[in-house]
């Protein structure tokens, strides 16, 4: 499987013979007032979301706590270049390309399917730490749950349409309807291939450089069932940090401050302190 176990393969024929093509990548940034030497954070949004989802609250908050903060839009998302046939490998490539361009070794923070992308990126880049927020690691279980909870949004994805997430899957009732509405209107989509790969993919290789891993989620997430969250955390030999009452989009929901503070506390303790 993946996580801590599994093996790093060093002959990488697809990567060497069919390199991922370059694309324009949107990177949004928030810089701390003074450099305290803390590692840069690179936030990776999930399918449909762009860097904007982190620029809304988390980037500035991280910067206010002295972490240089960056968010990338995966190709085909947000302000990045179009990529209708992108694969998970291309998304992970985007993350690694941005990570190595940062001045120091970065912490990778992935949300939703972006957490799976981060898991792939962690197998290619020795991050200072990895944070998986409401991770969607895919597989048929997740698909079943999505079908039950949101048949209208999930069925079109099977035939190549966009996977649509509903407002009440993403946010708690504490977030005013109008705000939730503007967020869902901003959602785009991942490529059809990547959507399929969410179901069928080779498990990510173990992270290189043995970074500490944190898994964060909500027991009330209507996209990631609690059992899936626990399973992902167990792959990495950790227990998930839970924020009851929150929706899937922890970085946009009304109580967005709690999870990011917990993540930054953990980083301060593990890496800086």
């Amino acid at each position, binding site marked *: 499987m993946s996580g801590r176990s599994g093996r790093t393969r060093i002959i990488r024929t697809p990567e060497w*013979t069919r390199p991922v093509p370059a694309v324009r990548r949107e990177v949004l940034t928030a810089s701390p007032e003074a450099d305290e030497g803390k590692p840069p954070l690179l936030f990776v949004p999930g399918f449909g979301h762009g860097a904007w989802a982190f620029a809304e609250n988390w980037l500035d908050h991280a910067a206010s706590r002295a972490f240089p903060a960056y968010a990338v839009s995966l190709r085909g998302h947000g302000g990045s270049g179009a990529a209708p046939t992108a694969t998970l490998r291309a998304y992970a490539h985007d993350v690694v390309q941005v990570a190595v361009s940062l001045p120091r070794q970065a912490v990778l923070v992935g949300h939703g399917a972006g957490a799976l992308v981060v898991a792939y990126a962690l197998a290619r880049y020795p991050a200072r730490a990895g944070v998986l927020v409401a991770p969607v690691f895919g597989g048929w279980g997740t698909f079943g749950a999505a079908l039950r909870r949101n048949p209208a949004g999930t069925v079109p994805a099977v035939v190549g349409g966009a996977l649509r997430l509903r407002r009440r899957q993403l946010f708690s009732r504490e977030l005013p309807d109008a705000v939730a509405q503007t967020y869902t209107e901003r959602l785009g989509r991942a490529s059809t291939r990547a959507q399929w790969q969410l179901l069928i993919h080779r498990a990510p290789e173990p992270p290189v450089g043995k970074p500490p891993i944190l898994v964060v989620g909500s027991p009330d997430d209507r996209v990631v069932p609690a059992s899936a969250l626990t399973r992902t955390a167990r792959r990495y030999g950790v227990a998930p940090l839970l924020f009851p009452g929150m929706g899937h989009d922890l970085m946009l929901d009304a109580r967005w401050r709690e999870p990011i503070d917990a993540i930054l506390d953990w980083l301060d303790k593990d890496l800086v302190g």
Partner: protein
Amino acid sequence: MSTHSEQESLEPAATLWRDGRPVYDRGDTICVIGAGASGLAAIKNLKEYGFGVDCYERETGVGGAWNWRHDRSPVYASTHLVSSRPLTEFPDFPMPDTWPDYPHHSLLLSYLERYADHFDLRPHIWFGTEVVRVEPADGERWDVTTRSTGGYGAERTSRYAAVVVANGHNWAPKMPAYEGLDEFRGQVIHASAYKDATQVRGKRVLVVGAGNSGCDIAVEAGQQAARCWHSIRRGYWYLPKYAFGRPADQVGHAAAALRLPLWLRQWLFHRALKLTVGDLTRFGLPRPDHRVYETHPIVNSQLVHYIGHGAITPVPDVARFTRTGVVLTDGREIEPDLVVLATGYLPRFEFLAPEILGTDAAGRPSLHLNMFPRRHPTLAVAGLLQPDAGLFPLVHWQAVMIARWLRLRELAPERARSFAARIAADTGERWNSAKVKESTRHWFEVGHVEYLRAVQRTLDELEVAA
């Protein structure tokens, strides 16, 4: 960057002695010699596995061969990679995907500098400090003696738990001896002293040797010099930089990774070359005396082009020099103003007694996986490879292997003993499915796929559960 005096002031007085001289005990710290690509990869990966590292670099910057500011850098102004970007970059620090397939040497330097900064390696490096002796000490440790580059200043000896030798093998010119060379009134330089086309402009130039250096320089002389002869002592395969619309090494890798048998890959390659480049004997070039992959690949799309345009005249080996010219083995005499000896480089390990690396009379060390000497488990060489692809991926995994090996020795001595026994019993395997041509340069030629397969097995074997 740190300075030596800083280090001295921070350190306790020496408590160890060797031959009446003080030895500073560096505890569990590991010493890396050289801050080129190989040394940087060693520091980064040893650090990642939790080791303390001191690196000594005799130059004032990182990058080794790729730092054209260094006196001993072999790169010339027009050097571009011969291996394409994906097969050359470190596996965990890719080059920007906006860079060309074959980046310029100045990009390589900026890449290595960014690698050093990103992973915060510079605080570990003592610049301007040359290693002059590495001697075994008690308990499989090593006494490393350094001094300021250039020889002035006092020597200083520190004791390390292990040493990684990453001193590079492309800086000490291999100079052939020729009868009459002393009398020759023209100019003779080695390729390492060739920097840019101004040196050949308007002159009659003879380039000796058809490695990648010789071919690059002949192409430049073909465009800039009044006359260019290219002397080669055998026929070669000149591989183009692109084949089937892809960088040629990517095509070659795909064939090797498919596990096509070597003879089939050679046959396919010969066919492809025949159909694209054509028969080179019509230009007066000798027919290759070997199959493709049996000499270090020459990757140069322009050489044949300029030969075909009459700008480069291929000639046979040099027989001897006279006062005014050069006599070739076919009896012809030519009169160059400048002779560039692109005859390659020799690996050198002056700071180590030859028996430590098991070095034979011809100067070839005997090392398991081109890295581990038979009887010194805490010493390893990194980067002593001539691959048919980029070097950095191989060196990266060598560095990981060294880190895992040193950790395994601490955590699982039983398993470490069985690996040590295998190192000692190695019969000199060469990691190349092709029968490489016997020549002064080919004893450390490796097929990158064959080599990486062996490295993968070793990495898996050395892994200690977290």
